[in-house]
């Protein structure tokens, strides 16, 4: 990293030519010779996938009581996992869509895997509300389908909005991701050596041939999808927060929730981007394509989102006091000093304390430190969602009805199982599809005059 200037490291390092860029990125997929530790890591993830499958089977067979929820705390880790995962997905959309609209050149080398991250995170998130249903096999009742019961969904319920928002988000993310992949799939088709591989990428590439007429319409469509994804991403997490705010439970019923949730989503999402990108660029030696500049900018966005989250914490506490209601005040005091106090202070320490280290440029540009901070923020944000979900119902209006959620082995089986499944999907993605957008890097290299 000696040649990185102190002020602003470049988006691309070194000089490249077109065959080199497409060859290097393409060969990660096509040669199939991945480092041994890649498969070791995949194996560990695969074990967690098995844990996940076992836990889900156990949960469905025994029922939702198996994971520590009970009245009054009927929402547990399934809901906090859901909010956490969906939040992680949001940073991917922000990088790929918002930074495209703002014409930030530094998005080019990280947008592809950020979009893949979105897709897999949403896939994980989508499971949890269904598992939480108790009778997951009836989840399709949320859809307005003609069925023998002749009933309709309750359109006034945030849970139905949530279903609409998540389904739309997953679909739009998939379309956006596939549209971005199309020219790169054609590159892989043309570089592939064996017939089955050519067929696989050839069919997926839909016969893309890079015609100037196609590129013009392609770019229009890509920008339009980005413009659609931007309001969508804000609406999705706002609707997720409405699941909470529509209830009159103390600690849920608050107007700060939509912006506070969106900021929290970006904070945890950028933390996950760094968690994946730092090992990725090291393991595949693409430090000149994914540069320190990318990591630095993502860290800056974490600070920005983190300060909004901190404002959300202060605002929640202030309005609990300012409302003058004993229920709100009690809930807030119990959150800080009650049975969940330890978790609460750990959360504050991680999300508000450790985060402040990112103000220092030297820390932002030291990869092991940045990686450790990103992991800490991931943990902190999971705890935040858990605190929000459980402390409200555990201290609601009637003191005799107070109670706690107890974390069981199943809670952790499902949480870590989902993390393992997520990373297993990321590994498969890196193996099968180009993790860095080839055509955008080539365009960038051309624009920046970095062509040999």
């Amino acid at each position, binding site marked *: 990293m000696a040649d990185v200037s102190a002020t602003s490291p470049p988006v691309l390092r070194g000089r490249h030519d077109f065959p080199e860029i497409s060859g290097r990125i393409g060969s990660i997929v096509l040669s199939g010779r991945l480092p041994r530790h890649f498969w070791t890591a995949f194996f560990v993830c695969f074990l967690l996938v098995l844990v996940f499958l076992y836990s889900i089977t156990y949960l469905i067979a025994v029922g939702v009581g198996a994971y520590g929820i009970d009245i009054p705390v009927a929402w547990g880790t399934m809901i906090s996992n859901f909010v956490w995962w969906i939040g992680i997905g949001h940073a991917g959309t922000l990088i790929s869509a918002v930074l495209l609209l703002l014409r930030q050149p530094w998005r080019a080398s990280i947008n592809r895997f950020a979009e893949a991250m979105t897709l897999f995170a949403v896939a994980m998130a989508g499971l949890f509300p269904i598992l939480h249903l108790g009778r997951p096999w009836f989840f399709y009742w949320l859809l307005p389908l003609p069925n023998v019961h002749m009933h309709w969904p309750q359109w006034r319920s945030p849970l139905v909005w949530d279903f609409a928002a998540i389904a739309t988000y997953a679909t739009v993310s998939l379309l956006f991701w596939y549209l971005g992949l199309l020219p790169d799939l054609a590159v892989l*088709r043309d570089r592939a050596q064996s017939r089955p591989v050519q067929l696989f990428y050839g069919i997926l590439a839909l016969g893309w041939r890079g*015609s100037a007429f196609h590129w013009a319409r392609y*770019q229009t469509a890509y920008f339009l999808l980005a413009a659609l994804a931007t309001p969508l991403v804000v609406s999705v997490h706002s609707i997720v927060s409405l699941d909470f705010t529509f209830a009159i439970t103390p600690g849920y019923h608050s107007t700060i929730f939509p912006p506070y949730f969106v900021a929290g989503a970006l904070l945890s999402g950028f933390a996950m981007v760094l968690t994946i990108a730092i090992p990725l660029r090291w393991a595949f030696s693409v430090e000149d394509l994914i540069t320190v500049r990318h990591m630095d900018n993502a860290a800056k966005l974490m600070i920005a989102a983190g300060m909004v989250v901190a404002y959300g914490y202060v605002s929640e506490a202030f309005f609990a006091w300012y409302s003058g209601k004993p229920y709100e005040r009690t809930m807030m005091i119990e959150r800080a000093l009650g049975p969940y106090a330890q978790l609460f202070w750990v959360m504050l320490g991680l999300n508000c304390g450790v985060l402040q280290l990112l103000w220092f440029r030297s820390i932002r540009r030291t990869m092991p430190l940045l990686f450790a901070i990103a992991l800490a923020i991931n943990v902190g944000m999971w705890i935040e969602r858990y605190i929000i979900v459980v402390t409200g119902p555990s201290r609601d209006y009637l003191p005799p009805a107070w109670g706690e959620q107890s974390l069981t082995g199943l809670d952790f089986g499902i949480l870590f199982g989902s993390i393992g499944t997520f990373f297993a999907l990321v590994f498969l993605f890196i193996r099968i599809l180009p993790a860095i957008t080839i055509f955008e890097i080539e365009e960038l290299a051309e624009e920046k005059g970095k062509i040999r």
Partner: protein
Amino acid sequence: MSLYGILAVFGEPEALVEAAGGMRDRGYRHMDAFSPFPIKELDQILEIRGSRLPWIVLAGGIASAALAYALILYSVEIDYPINVGGRPLHSWPPFLVIAFEAGILGAAFAAFFGMLAANGLPCYHHPVFNAEGFGYARGGKFHLLVETADPKYRKGVTKGQLRRLGAESVEEIEA
């Protein structure tokens, strides 16, 4: 086999743009260019008109939002009117949320499938794939195609012009 056109290969994007401009000055109009990434300068040379895609996307979004809202309205007013906590049957603020999401979904589908339809994709068999030197992504090459349909097209003349404009190689491609 009939000829589809002549494909010239260039090593640099600037060379492709220059050659396309040169061929345009010589009166050619039925041309296409192939590049591994979009080149803005080609839009004017090849007379690529602004796409109608934005209007299709807008129409898709509005139609989809209206459809979702109409479905909700039908369900609460006609098919199953039920009084929930004394709220009006037509409580539009919550209904707008779902209509908004449906609108985004419809617009996204219109953008994706509209782009594919306008470009005639998927298209697994196209004459340019018959060319030896195509496989545009393999070597970072840039291609210019002059179709036989062009009124100015004369096999020998066109080839010579392309060579003089700096083509690395020139190839006839069969339809």
